């Protein structure tokens, strides 16, 4: 199977598991076992004990044990818990720290906490259904199925991934978000993720009252419908509605007269809005924002690259944990308990009322799928497209 990825933004909704984590969030927002089959912690959350799944091997044949998992785990946990230590014995892993680690499972579910090993020839030896057979960073990656995968061999024998190219003859290819209109061949199926990348304006040095006026002036509808060609939804909240369930509470319509009135009472300082230099989509968004701002009497200069006092930033979701994602967008030094939807809403309300971040659009990721490509559970996961569940009908034309 051939796969192309033309957009540097894309790719995160495509699951190509090479290395796996101890645990993961499932589609219902519950933690479920992957390489760990059981875990427990002491009342203070300072000591966690995990039992690793038996009979799991890395791609080079080495068994998954506490000892073989520990180096990758320690490297993943150190940035968050500086005093963390790991003890192992057989299939047991004990994670200890002087400070409580109540959110340890959240951290372990992140892709960055995947268990992998390195060799001179291969920088990524995991336990997942696919193993790396060749790679050239930024250009291509070749995967082969891992016959001894504990979850069952994938249907595909091999996957060739080309980065930075158009569709070509690819069986699966990303359809980048952008201003250029794309006409897809008839019969081609597409898959779109749930909205999963927030595009927002962040402010490092601007009057919050001016930002409040700017937020009122921006017409978000055309950003999702026209600029993103319906691959995005207007965002009034930081978390997409499918994840939080309450995003509609933030919905509003542009109110240019009120924005104008607010601006008239403020000292008008020129603003610059920077965006990644080669990103045509974000450039079109920046220009659109500048246009809306001008209607309200706010002067904004779009600026490729550089360091404007306003920045257009993307926040791709990396999990289905609403609390974790909100804290990634807006880190808090002392976050409240966010297990209840109401407390999550209150924090998001507070963040938006501070007017240091203005959500604009939540983007979907869309892939074109050749007719000969099938998925075992199409549509079962709104968040990711699982390559390990794909197969190619060899009798069908590419």
């Amino acid at each position, binding site marked *: 199977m051939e796969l192309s990825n033309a957009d540097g933004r894309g790719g995160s909704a495509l699951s190509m598991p090479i290395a796996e984590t101890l645990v993961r969030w499932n589609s219902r927002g519950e933690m479920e076992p992957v390489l760990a*089959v059981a875990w427990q912690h002491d009342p203070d959350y300072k000591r966690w004990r995990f039992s690793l799944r038996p009979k799991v091997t890395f791609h080079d044949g080495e068994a998954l044990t506490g000892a073989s998992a520990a180096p990758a785990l320690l490297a993943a946990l150190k940035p968050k818990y500086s005093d963390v230590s790991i003890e192992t014995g057989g299939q047991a892993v004990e994670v200890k720290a002087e400070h409580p680690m109540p959110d340890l499972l959240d951290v372990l579910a992140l892709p960055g906490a995947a268990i992998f090993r390195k060799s001179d020839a291969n920088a990524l030896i995991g336990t997942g259904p696919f193993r790396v057979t060749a790679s050239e960073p930024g250009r291509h990656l070749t995967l082969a199925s891992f016959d*001894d995968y504990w979850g*069952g*061999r994938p249907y595909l024998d091999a996957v060739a991934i080309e980065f930075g190219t158009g569709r070509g003859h690819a069986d699966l290819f990303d359809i980048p978000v952008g201003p250029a209109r794309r006409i897809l061949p008839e019969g081609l199926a597409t898959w779109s993720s749930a909205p999963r990348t927030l595009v927002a304006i962040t402010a490092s040095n601007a009057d919050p009252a001016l930002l409040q006026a700017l937020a009122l002036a921006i017409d978000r509808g055309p950003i999702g419908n026209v600029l993103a060609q319906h691959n995005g939804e207007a965002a009034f909240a930081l978390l997409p509605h*499918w994840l939080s*369930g*309450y995003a509609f509470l933030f919905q509003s319509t542009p109110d240019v007269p009120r924005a104008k009135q607010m601006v008239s009472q403020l000292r008008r300082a020129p603003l610059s809005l920077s965006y990644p230099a080669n990103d045509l989509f974000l450039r079109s968004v920046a220009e659109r924002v500048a246009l809306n701002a001008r209607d309200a009497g706010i002067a904004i200069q779009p600026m490729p690259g550089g360091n404007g006092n306003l920045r257009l930033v993307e926040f791709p979701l990396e999990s289905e944990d609403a609390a974790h994602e909100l804290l990634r967008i807006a880190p808090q030094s002392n976050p409240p308990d966010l297990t*209840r*939807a109401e407390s999550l809403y209150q924090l998001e309300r507070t963040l938006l009322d501070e007017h240091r971040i203005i959500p604009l659009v939540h983007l979907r990721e869309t892939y074109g799928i050749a007719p000969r490509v099938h998925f075992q559970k199409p549509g079962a996961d709104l968040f990711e497209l699982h390559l390990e569940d794909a*197969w190619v009908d060899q009798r069908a034309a590419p």
Partner: protein
Amino acid sequence: MQTVGVGTAATPPESGASATLPRLRVTASSDTRGLLFVAEVLIGDNRQVAMLPWTLPSSAQAKPRVSITTKILWIQPEPILDLLLVDSGSQMLVLSLNGVASYRSSGEKWTPSATASLVLPRPMPRDPRGRLESTAGGVEAFLPVATCVVVWNPELKLTCASSVANWPGTLGTHWVADRNVLEGDAPTPSFAGWGSDWASIADPCSAGTVGGAGKVAIASSPNTEHDSVRTYLILDGQANPTSDPLPLPGPVTALWEAESPGQATLVVHNLQTGEYEASRLALACSQ
């Protein structure tokens, strides 16, 4: 599905007092965990919000006419692909990923008698499936990567060929090589709420009626990790439930029509124990 409800306690605008009277708006929403009721109390420009997660209760149903009973026949740590009772139910063959095992009936228990390993031309695909079928020559094991002849008397033997054969008594139904999907001339029904496993068995309520015994479909339903099974009568292209859902202790990994009429073989991966449980499902008419 509960509908979105909106309630207001506002007085008409001309009363002049509407700005101070509280208004209540309740919205049925959902997040990744399920339903979420969001209540907004609006007083002038102020808004207070309360949220209540809610699990959908089972919908009210008419009294079901079919009841499902289960009897566990075999439990083991390795995945069970299928199970077949032979020699008038005195012997049991269990098809697993690694081979076929035979068991002898001794009262209510099954005693292991022999095992034969599967030597396959290539590894099984993920989510492996397999079927044991009585054929004219004995028993055959149909797998996505091979077809094997099973002989259990006088000793258990497996002879496999790397080809996918048509299932006996079907319209050319066979595994698609290296995948866990079936291909055949007969269309495969699929309805909303059904999982990937279903079997067609005799309808216990239609026996003795004009036209003879009809068929009902028994299908798995992937309701979170803990699947359920339920019977359906297919009429006019619609699947009409005829039983209550039977909750199971984990996901269904196999559901086949059994060798005995009116029964099905069900395999569930019990998430509590981690073991695979093969059961016999039987239907009874409760009308």
